[in-house]
C-alpha cells in the first residue's frame, strides 16, 4: 500500500526542521521511506514532481523552507531553520482565547475554516489556554462563501497574481472576458465582491463574485498598476446598492405600512387619516425598492423618480410586457 500523503509530508517537515545543515534532495530521498518507494517504483521525474509539490504544501502550511548549498556535494539543499519558523511568544488570557475560538468558527468555506482551526491548534500547542465556548452567547455569526470564484481569487490577491475571468455585468445578456489585478475581497450583506485593476479599462473596478461565469484563470506576470494603500470595496458597493444617497425623495405612504421606509425616513408627517408623507434618501435602485410596496406608496417628487415608478408598474400591469433591458444595479 502506498504511504499516505500526510505521513510523507510529516516526515519531510520533521527532517527539514531537525537538520542544522541544508539537506540535498538525494539525502531526503534516502531518509524518507515514501520517497524511496516512489523512487524505486517510478521515474526520477515522478519523484521530482512529488518533492516539489510537497515543499509547496508545507510552505502553504507556513513552514519557511530555505534553499542553500549543501556543503557535502555542492547541490541545492533544503532546511527549515528553527528561528525562522518559531511562533513568537503570545500570551492570550482565557477570555481572549475563548473569543478567538468563537470567531474561528465563522467560516463556511473549507480552506479558510481549515486554516482557522489550524491557527487555533498552533496557538493551543504553544500554550494558549483552551476553554469551552462561553455559555449564554447565542449569537452565531457565519461567513457564507458559495461562490466558486472565491478561493482562486483569494489566492491570487494574496500572491498578487493577475487573473482573467468571464463576467456578466448586471443586466447584460452576455458575458465578457475581463483581465484583472485582484486587490481585495469584501463580503457585504452576505455577498462577495472583488476590487481590483481592470487592465482593459485601465481603471479600478468592483466585481460581484456571483456574476463571474466559469473558471478564474491565473495569468503570467506581475501587477502593472500600483496597489492603493487602502481599498474601500464596501463604499463602492454601498454606492451601487443605493446607500450614501445625496438627494432626497418625497413619498406618500399608507398609514402603518412600509416599515422599512419609515425606518430610514429623514422626516415624516401625517397627511390625513390614511396617508403619511415621508422624506427619504434617494440613491441608486430606489425605484425598484419602492415598487415592491405596490399601492401602499406613491412617489410625489422628484418627477423623474415618479415617472420611473409609473413605467415600472405599467410593465407589470400591462399585458405580459417584457420589453428590453432596463438599466439595473451594477457591479
Amino acid at each position, binding site marked *: 500500500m502506498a*504511504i499516505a*500523503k500526510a505521513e510523507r509530508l*510529516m516526515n519531510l517537515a*520533521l527532517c527539514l526542521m*531537525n537538520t542544522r545543515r541544508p539537506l540535498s534532495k538525494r539525502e531526503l530521498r534516502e531518509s*524518507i521511506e515514501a520517497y*524511496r518507494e516512489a523512487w524505486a517504483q517510478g521515474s526520477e521525474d515522478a519523484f521530482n514532481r512529488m518533492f516539489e509539490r510537497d515543499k509547496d*504544501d508545507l510552505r*502553504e502550511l*507556513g513552514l519557511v523552507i530555505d534553499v542553500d548549498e549543501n556543503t557535502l556535494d555542492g547541490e541545492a539543499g533544503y532546511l527549515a531553520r*528553527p528561528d525562522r*519558523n518559531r*511562533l*513568537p511568544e*503570545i500570551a*492570550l488570557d482565557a477570555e*481572549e482565547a475563548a*473569543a478567538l475560538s468563537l*470567531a474561528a468558527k465563522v467560516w463556511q468555506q*473549507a*480552506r479558510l475554516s*481549515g*486554516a482557522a482551526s489550524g491557527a487555533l*491548534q*498552533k496557538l493551543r*500547542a504553544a*500554550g494558549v489556554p*483552551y476553554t*469551552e465556548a462561553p455559555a449564554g*452567547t*447565542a449569537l*452565531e*455569526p*457565519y461567513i457564507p462563501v458559495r461562490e466558486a470564484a472565491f478561493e482562486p481569487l483569494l489566492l491570487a*490577491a*494574496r500572491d498578487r497574481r493577475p487573473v482573467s475571468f468571464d463576467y456578466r455585468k448586471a443586466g447584460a*445578456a452576455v458575458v465578457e472576458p475581463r483581465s484583472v489585478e485582484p486587490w*481585495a475581497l*469584501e463580503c457585504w*450583506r452576505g*455577498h462577495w465582491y472583488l476590487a481590483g485593476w481592470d487592465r482593459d479599462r485601465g481603471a479600478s473596478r468592483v466585481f460581484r463574485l456571483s456574476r463571474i461565469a466559469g473558471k478564474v484563470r491565473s495569468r503570467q506576470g506581475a501587477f502593472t498598476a500600483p496597489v492603493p494603500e487602502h481599498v474601500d470595496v*464596501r463604499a463602492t458597493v454601498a454606492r451601487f446598492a443605493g446607500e450614501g444617497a445625496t438627494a432626497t425623495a418625497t413619498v406618500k405612504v399608507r398609514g*402603518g405600512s412600509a*416599515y422599512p421606509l419609515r*425606518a430610514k425616513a429623514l422626516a415624516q408627517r401625517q397627511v390625513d387619516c390614511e396617508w403619511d408623507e415621508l422624506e427619504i434618501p434617494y440613491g441608486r435602485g430606489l425605484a425598484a425598492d419602492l*415598487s*415592491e410596496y*405596490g*399601492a401602499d*406608496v406613491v412617489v410625489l417628487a422628484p418627477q423623474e423618480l415618479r415617472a420611473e415608478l409609473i*413605467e*415600472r*408598474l405599467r410593465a*407589470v400591469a400591462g399585458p405580459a*410586457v*417584457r420589453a428590453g*433591458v*432596463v*438599466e*439595473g444595479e451594477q457591479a
Partner: protein
Amino acid sequence: MSNAIDQTRRMLSLVTYLRERPGAEVAEVARAFGISERELIADLNVLPMCGTSFRGGDLLDIDTDGERIWWHNVDDVAQPLRLAADEATALLVAARAVASLPGLRDRDRQALTRAVVKIENAAGETAEGSARVGVTFEAEGQVFADIDRALSEGRRIWLRYYSHGRGGMTEREVDPIRLLTEGHTYLDGWCRTSEDRRLFRLDRVAEIKVLDEPADPPRLEPRDLSQGLVNPAADDPEVVVEVGPGGRWVAEYYTHDTAEELPDGGLRITLRSSDPSGLRTLALRLGADGRIVRPAPLAEQARAAARAALAGYEAAE
C-alpha cells in the same frame, strides 16, 4: 473531512502540544484540537511512522492506551510553529468581523480586540494579507441586545414585525432559539402565533418586548446553513419566473431548483416557496425585467397589485 494538508497541519501542532503534556488525556487533546477522538487516534497511528530520519531509526515514539498519550523520546523538533499566511488571514478576518458586530457584548468585543492585536504582533508580516479580505456584518443594536437578553434569560418575546412578503406589520410572540448572522442578522425562533419555526430579520423588527413568560421552544435540529438560510421544503408550491438579462439577480438571491438560460440572455427560474403570495413583491420589483409565469393566479395577483398602485398615481394627477 480530514484531508492530507489539514492532517499534516494538525500533526505538526500535535507533537508540540504533546511535548509539553506528558500523559495527556485523549479526550482532552481531541477537544483542544476540535476533532473527534477517532480522528486523533488516526493521527496517533501515523506519528510513529514519522521521524527525522527513516534510516537512522529515530522515529517518534508516541503511543496511547486509548486514554492517555505518551511520547517516550521527546525532542526539540517540536517547537511552536509560526502562523501560515492563510491561517493568519482566516483568524484575523473572522475576529475583526465578529468584533464589529453591533450586538456583541462589550466584554467579548474587548477581549476579541485585544486578541486581534496580539495575533497581529505574533504573525508579523504574515498578517499583512489579511487586510485584503474584509467582512461586514450588519445588525441592529437595540433589538439585538433585547433578543440576546431574552435568550440568556430563556424568555419569550413579543415582536411587531414587518413581513416583507405580505407588505404589512404583524404582531407575534416568539420563543427565540438563536441569532444568526449572514450579512444581515436573523432571529431563528419558534413563532407561537403561527406555531411554526421562522426566521426574523432584525432590521424588520419595529418593536420588541421581552416578556415575563419563559420561552418553551420545541426541540429542533439546528438549521443546515450550507445551502443558505432559506431552504424550501420539497412539497412547497412551485413557482416559475422568467426574467430578462436585467433580472438575473433573482437566481443569486433566491434558492431555486433550476435556472434555464433563455435565448435573450435571460433565465427561466423554477423555485419553491412556502408562501408564494410573498413573491408578488418580487414581480413588482422586476418591472419590465421579468414576470411570474406560474402559477397563473399568482401572476394575476401581481398584475392586480400593479394596477392598484397605478390607480394611486392617476388619482393624484
